[in-house]
């Protein structure tokens, strides 16, 4: 039987992070204590999630449990639900967050003023708490609250750098993000009016009853469409992703890694849960939402890459590449089979760890070139910050899908998942074209970084990267190879988690 503390881990991890968010502004500023505290708390939550994962999977059969909050049972009170998939996602989110905080520890000090850094830490903790809550929640009311907390925390993180451009891009991000949350809350209200519940399982029962009585099908599909569009806006799917590059280019390195690697993933997982738990895959198919998502995913893969090809600025290039990668995830969801969703979840994990590495590496390289972001300015920076250069190369290979790198694992599983599906031709063609295009823009970037540039080297001001940067980059690289080489047990675990969702 599971250790009884393990049942409390979902709640304890969210609670610890929120507590840390309250405590950090009260700490003394010397020695960067608040930042160290938030790193420690995120690390602790990562260990707790690993423990939860171990307890859930070590008894042969995978186990899921519901954890009710407060004194009221499910239809009224709010509930958390944890299974292997939630635990593994929480673990990887925490690890990616920890590494992007430690990897950018010194560049954060340059970018953000000391008195703002404390608030920044508090918001990072709040953001992490909201990500975990989105991962674990089992009712739409909690989901709504934490989507909004996520919005506010993410906006404030975008605004962390105190300059006019960052403020303007925060305003743009906020308008888009608030639009997304308004659509989500409208969908939740509609679903509540139709079913009378907010808890996911109860909603599912009521929706099934409505569908078998063939009543209220139009409002149901409107609610589903609103929910999907709202969450797609927040997770930067193509037609709704035009905000991402403009916002991303003004971010500090740490916020960039967090925003493109983690913030958008929480919303995608929420969408998967709503598809699986609230509607059920057969109803999604009946309402044709799977086809819509598949087409948008395909479009996102291609158009994101086309835009990335045209970019001269490394940060914008990485941002457009994020749009393409989100397309892969939605392609997996659009396949609407448990294998497809498992592949999508694997790609969520892969992208969360690779994109945070790429952002950290791109930030390190652009700092080495004296805070310039144009691709031309980065010539020869590999020889100044070799760890960042290695990170960029490994990340680029991973995005192209070279075997032994993380991206290969998820592309392989997406391909396998699309084999017994009627969209196989489209899916394979999309994967092939998008991989080639990834190579078309990442290879030149790698070549530029590796080219010797003797003249410009005197301009470069940065010294060798700090030890913490090297260690974080080493762990990033190790994680990348682990995901690329040993993904089969992980994929099996995810498949079990998806079936138990």
């Amino acid at each position: 039987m599971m250790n009884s503390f393990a049942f409390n881990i979902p709640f304890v991890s969210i609670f610890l992070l929120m507590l840390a968010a309250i405590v950090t502004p009260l700490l003394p500023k010397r020695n960067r204590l608040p930042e160290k505290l938030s790193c420690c708390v995120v690390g602790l939550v990562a260990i707790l999630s690993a423990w939860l994962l171990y307890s859930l999977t070590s008894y042969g059969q995978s186990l899921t449990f519901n954890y009710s909050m407060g004194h009221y049972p499910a239809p009224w009170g709010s509930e958390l639900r944890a299974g292997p998939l939630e635990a593994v996602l929480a673990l990887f989110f925490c690890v990616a967050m920890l590494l992007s905080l430690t990897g950018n520890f010194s560049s954060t000090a340059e970018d953000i003023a000391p008195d703002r850094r404390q608030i920044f830490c508090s918001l990072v903790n709040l953001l992490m708490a909201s990500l975990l809550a989105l991962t674990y929640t089992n009712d739409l009311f909690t989901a709504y609250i934490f989507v909004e907390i996520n919005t506010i925390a993410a906006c404030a993180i975008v605004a962390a750098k105190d300059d006019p451009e960052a403020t303007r891009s925060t305003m743009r991000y906020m308008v888009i993000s608030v639009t997304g949350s308004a659509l989500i809350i409208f969908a939740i209200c509609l679903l509540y009016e139709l079913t009378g519940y907010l808890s996911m399982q109860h909603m599912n029962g009521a929706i099934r009853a409505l569908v078998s009585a063939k009543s209220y099908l139009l409002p149901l599909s409107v609610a589903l469409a609103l929910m999907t569009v709202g969450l797609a806006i927040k997770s930067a799917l193509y037609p709704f992703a035009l905000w991402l590059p403009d916002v991303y280019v003004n971010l500090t390195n740490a916020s960039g890694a967090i925003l493109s690697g983690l913030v958008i993933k929480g919303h995608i997982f929420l969408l998967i849960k709503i598809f699986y738990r609230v509607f059920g895959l057969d109803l999604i198919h009946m309402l044709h939402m799977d086809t819509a998502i598949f087409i948008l995913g395909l479009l996102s893969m291609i158009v994101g890459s086309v835009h990335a090809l045209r970019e001269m600025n490394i940060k914008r290039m990485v941002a457009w590449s994020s749009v393409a990668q989100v397309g892969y995830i939605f392609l997996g969801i659009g396949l609407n089979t448990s294998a497809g969703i498992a592949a999508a979840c694997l790609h969520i994990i892969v992208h969360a760890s690779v994109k945070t590495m790429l952002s950290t590496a791109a930030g390190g390289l652009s700092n080495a070139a004296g805070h310039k972001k144009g691709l031309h300015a980065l010539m020869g920076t590999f020889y100044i910050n070799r760890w960042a250069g290695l990170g960029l190369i490994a990340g680029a290979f991973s995005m192209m899908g070279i075997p032994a790198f993380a991206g290969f694992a998820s592309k392989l599983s997406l391909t396998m998942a699309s084999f017994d599906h009627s969209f196989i031709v489209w899916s394979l063609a999309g994967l092939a074209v998008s991989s080639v295009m990834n190579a078309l823009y990442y290879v030149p970037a790698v070549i530029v970084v590796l080219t010797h540039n003797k003249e410009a080297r005197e301009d470069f001001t940065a010294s060798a990267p700090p030890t913490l940067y090297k260690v974080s980059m080493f762990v990033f690289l190790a994680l990348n190879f682990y995901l690329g080489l040993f993904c089969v047990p992980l994929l099996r675990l995810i498949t079990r988690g998806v079936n138990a969702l």
Partner: protein
Amino acid sequence: MLERLFINHYQTAAVILSGIGLTNLLLQRNLIKKIIGLNIMNSAIFLFLAAKGNINPLPSVMALAGIVITLSLTAFALALTLKIYEDSGTLNIDEALLKKTKEQEELEAIIEQAEEEEIFS
């Protein structure tokens, strides 16, 4: 079809209002008007919830939470607006965005440099 809109007139009004709010949020160029649009949109959602009007506490709880969230979003957006006004001296988002960014300056410098090199070679 049309008579259902009259039967559920609260919901119809809420949807129309939130549409008005959303268009204001997205299309207004003045930042203060954008924020007013945000408030109209969220109030419409509270109307939608309040129209349910029975003894069930869940809609009231959602509306209360929504009010708190809208309040904090509005406060944050107003703070940002103040900051943008201090920086660029205008409330119009287009005019504020027209100011040259560092990124564009960097790109222009690169293009100029490339052109000069071409002339000399």
